[in-house]
């Protein structure tokens, strides 16, 4: 073999070998989209519309058999009052089960606090519920495989399999999990899986007179929730935890934790 041929063949071989077959494969974006499930539940909360009536909390508790008098709830509504001096006060008496009927802010151990109207810079309500994260921390910490995520994104708890160790309750950065006082297992918002999987609405979204809560399919470009998430200025809670939440908020302030 001549040196010229040797160098030529080597060049061809090396460049050929460095290209893997998959590089030459044509990627069809439609095919890529199809490989993802066509359903991914997401939730949209409009904090401007929420008036703090707490009908959602009551409906959720009745729908999902959470004792009304027990101090646990799958969803709740927080009140934020920001004063002109830059202070942020947050309260949430009984998870807003009976709404907000008083101007007095519940400061727990330090009692009730009155903030005069003229000192208020901003005040609004923020409904909270399980974020059904794309990478849920609570699921990863379960030692027995009792909590999991379905293909359509709902994070659920297997009540027959849960041993009640409470790791997931500690693991959730949003504090949405609690110990069910009757079932004696970890419990959380299911996005009303029994309702939405039959084409219904969640109990909280249905009970909301103002349309502050909406559930939808994030993979459907014509879904109102998916549209809002794409087009509106939305935010998620505690993105720094890397859990990739799927509850989006319109009008989310930095102060909201």
């Amino acid at each position, binding site marked *: 073999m001549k040196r010229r041929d040797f160098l030529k063949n080597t060049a061809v071989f090396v460049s050929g070998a460095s290209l893997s077959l998959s590089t030459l494969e044509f990627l069809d974006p439609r095919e890529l989209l199809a490989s993802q*499930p066509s359903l991914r539940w997401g939730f949209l909360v409009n*904090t*401007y*519309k*929420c*008036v*703090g*009536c*707490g*009908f959602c909390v*009551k*409906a959720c508790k*009745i*729908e*999902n058999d959470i004792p009304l008098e027990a101090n646990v709830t799958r969803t709740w509504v927080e009140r934020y009052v920001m004063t002109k001096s830059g202070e942020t006060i947050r309260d949430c008496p009984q998870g807003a089960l*009976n*709404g*907000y*009927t*008083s*101007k007095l802010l519940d400061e727990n151990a330090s009692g009730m606090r009155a903030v005069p*109207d003229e000192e*208020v810079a*901003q*005040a*609004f*309500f923020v409904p909270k519920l399980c974020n059904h994260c794309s*990478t*849920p921390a609570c*699921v*990863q910490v379960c030692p027995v*495989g*009792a*909590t*999991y*995520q*379905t*293909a359509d994104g709902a994070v*659920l708890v*297997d*009540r*027959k*399999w849960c041993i009640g160790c409470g790791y997931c309750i500690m693991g959730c950065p949003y504090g949405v999990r609690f110990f069910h006082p009757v079932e004696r297992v970890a419990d959380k918002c*299911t996005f*009303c*899986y*029994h*309702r939405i*999987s*039959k084409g*219904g*609405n969640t*109990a909280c979204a*249905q*009970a909301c*007179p*103002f349309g*502050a809560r909406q559930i939808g399919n994030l993979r459907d470009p014509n879904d109102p929730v998916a549209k809002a998430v794409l087009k509106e200025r939305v935010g998620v809670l505690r993105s720094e935890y890397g859990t990739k939440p799927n509850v989006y908020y319109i*009008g989310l302030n930095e102060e909201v934790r």
Partner: protein
Amino acid sequence: MKKHVWRPLFVVLSLVIFILLFRLAYVPADFGAQERGYTFGFHRLGNEQEWKDYPAKYKNSSYCNECHDDKVKSLKASAHAIIPCENCHGAALGHPDKPEKLTVDRSRGQCLRCHAKLYMPSSGRNNIPGIDPEQHNPGTACAECHNPHNPSLEEM
């Protein structure tokens, strides 16, 4: 090698076999990594169906409309049209069979959920007509003067 050296090994082996057999009997066949993989989808598949079968308590206003269309119609003409029937009348469950009658929440607190005057700029609450519960006829049920289905006093 002598027998007593092997004996502990047999004990351990039989223990392992016992645990494996117990697992086989105890863990359901549909338990394992599902669509979301080992990290997020390690579970008993049958539980998804169990959650789907959870009984729903709330119907919706169109269900109420099937029999009480007159009431629904009158409500839809008022400012309270946006409030779903079941928010005040209670979850329909198996109504009209069981329960035959729903318990209506006519309490003052029910109205105050929205109509207690709060100063909430940057919230829809500020657009709702409100009263100070301690000044506005305290102790009286709102429904004594206001019709919940048509709350405006002028039109009553």
